[in-house]
């Protein structure tokens, strides 16, 4: 009897792993196709796309597409710009949105409910639909810099950063998370005479690792993949991000090998970053998601 149930368990394990692997294949094959294709000359890539060879590193394999991609476009510059814009926005967004959420979750003040309702309503506005009014606005905004007051934000990093620092979804995530923190902690700190800011910094933030990670990932993905807005506001190459750079590869006769190489170049770092942080990512999304 024991022997049979042992076998049974073994069989079930095999079935389980088979199912897991099949699903994994479905989720990963397009990305495998991308990376494998980036190693092939365009002609071969297109011919191979018609068979299972598309997923195998066979034939004329080299890194030539990568060298060519660097020759065609300032890839390093685009990646730098994207990382800079994304990084600054994510950090600023975490600070601004968590502070706002703190005020919404723990502090009572005049106008709070109205402000929160309006902010949540903005979740419904797709960015594409306000892009043109925003462009008209951004082209006339003042900025105080080293050379005094200048007008118009085009061709800068700030025009790619500032409009995206505060958004409804990030604030919403923080508010939901904060509401589930034990309120007594805050009360106790107030009784002891701690300032609001001290409570925010010393009590709430240290407990907010998971939600900070979630908000950071979401913002990172949105910012790194920006396309429409940078096209409208960056006329100078020195400010262009990766998704605009992708357009450099869409010439009349498309060099698909180079396109795949560029796609791999801009995607693999994000994947690697993600894999590195995946435990924290999943744990953090897991612990915030529940409070819808």
């Amino acid at each position: 009897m024991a022997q049979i149930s042992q076998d049974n368990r073994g069989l079930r394990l095999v079935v389980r792993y088979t199912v897991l692997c099949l699903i994994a294949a479905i989720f990963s094959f397009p990305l495998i196709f991308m990376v494998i294709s980036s190693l092939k000359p365009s002609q071969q890539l297109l011919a191979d796309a018609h068979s299972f060879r598309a997923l195998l590193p066979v034939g004329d394999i080299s890194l030539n597409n990568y060298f060519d991609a660097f020759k065609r476009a300032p890839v390093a510059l685009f990646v730098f710009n994207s990382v800079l814009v994304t990084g600054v926005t994510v950090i600023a967004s975490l600070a601004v949105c968590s502070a706002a959420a703190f005020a919404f979750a723990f502090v009572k003040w005049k106008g709070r409910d109205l402000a929160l309702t309006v902010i949540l309503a903005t979740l419904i506005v797709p960015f594409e639909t306000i892009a043109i009014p925003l462009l008209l606005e951004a082209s006339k905004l003042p900025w105080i810099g080293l050379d005094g007051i200048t007008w118009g934000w085009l061709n800068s990093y700030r025009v790619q950063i500032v409009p995206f620092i505060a958004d409804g979804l990030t604030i919403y995530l923080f508010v939901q998370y904060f509401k589930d923190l034990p309120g007594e902690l805050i009360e106790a700190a107030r009784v002891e005479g701690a300032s609001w800011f001290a409570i925010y910094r010393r009590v709430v933030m240290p407990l907010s690792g998971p939600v900070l990670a979630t908000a950071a990932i979401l913002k990172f993905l949105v910012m790194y993949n920006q396309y429409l807005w940078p096209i409208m506001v960056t006329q100078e190459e020195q400010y262009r991000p990766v998704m605009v750079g992708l357009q450099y590869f869409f010439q009349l006769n498309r060099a698909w090998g180079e396109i795949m190489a560029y796609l791999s170049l801009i995607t693999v770092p994000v994947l690697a970053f993600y894999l590195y942080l995946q435990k924290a990512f999943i744990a953090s999304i897991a612990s915030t998601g529940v409070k819808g």
Partner: protein
Amino acid sequence: MASKFTQSNRTGWLMAGPAIALILAFVIAPFFLAVGFSFTNQRLVSPHPAEFTGLSNYRQLLGLGVLHLDPLTDAAGAVVLDDQGQPKLPELRKITRKNPDYPQFDGMREWFSWSSGEGRTYVLARDVVFMTAIVNTFIFVLVVAPLQGGLALGLALLINQRLRGINVFRAIYFMPVVVSIVVVSLLWSFIYNQNDGILNNILSAISFGAIPRIDWLGNPSTAMGAIIFMSVWQAVGFHMVIWLSGLQTISPTLYEAGAIEGASKWQTFRYITWPGLRNTAVLVLVVITMQAFGLFSQIDVMTKGGPLDSTQTIVFQAIQRGYGKQDISAGSAISVILFVIVLSVSLIQRYLTREKV
């Protein structure tokens, strides 16, 4: 909660002020500008100043009419038959194009129609493409919301077991989420490729050639389905993780109690797991719905709304008119219509999923 410890107008405004100011400046102000444009004839490119035109953009987009046509009769009053022996109807285009007898239908086109009695009843729309876009968007939302939510839950249940290496699978299932939707759309265009794309090859191989090769994106009956599948593929990992979090908050003691009572697997899910996931379900549903209404990038990269308008969507139309056809006022009106639609849907969702105390 509203004790003296929690009341502070100054702190509230100081801490929330920056976020409120930024959102006012960069979301709400442009949105109201767009609302303003929708009541004018504002162009993207024009030497002429915009003029106030009232509701004309909305009338143009949403205008509908119903028309019943009776078959033609000859002098004797008998019904005229066409080549196929069917009753012959008057030509619709003669009625809707510059016909002084029917000014209310001028410029309209057939949206859909059905036979009624001897004749045919037509529902006419001033903008058939936009009507199609609205219907397509709703189809996308209605299919994607339960499908993506359900599959994500299935994956979460699958991945929520103690197995060696389960983290690797978790990571793989989440991977598509971190890839840009534009990149994903480009890759899947290759995969869906009509005659000899990877997908057709796989299907043909596993069915030993029984499944015919399909032009997934070029066929009006499969294009939206193909886009739905790809969209779910890309986003399901994210919602899987949200479900997973919900699963992990359910107390193990409940499951132990269930086991003692001899509950079946289904009963365990029905009476322990599912009730514990209520809040999660609301979050997943709301987020998927909001995202689904914004369907744009996939369409822009893969089909441009075709073939035969089978993948037109509301946001794609807003962009197509506002930028492509330089008609900011119509694009803005579409945005406002979308806002009203999504607002209504989310209010309904909120009502349906409210806590029943």
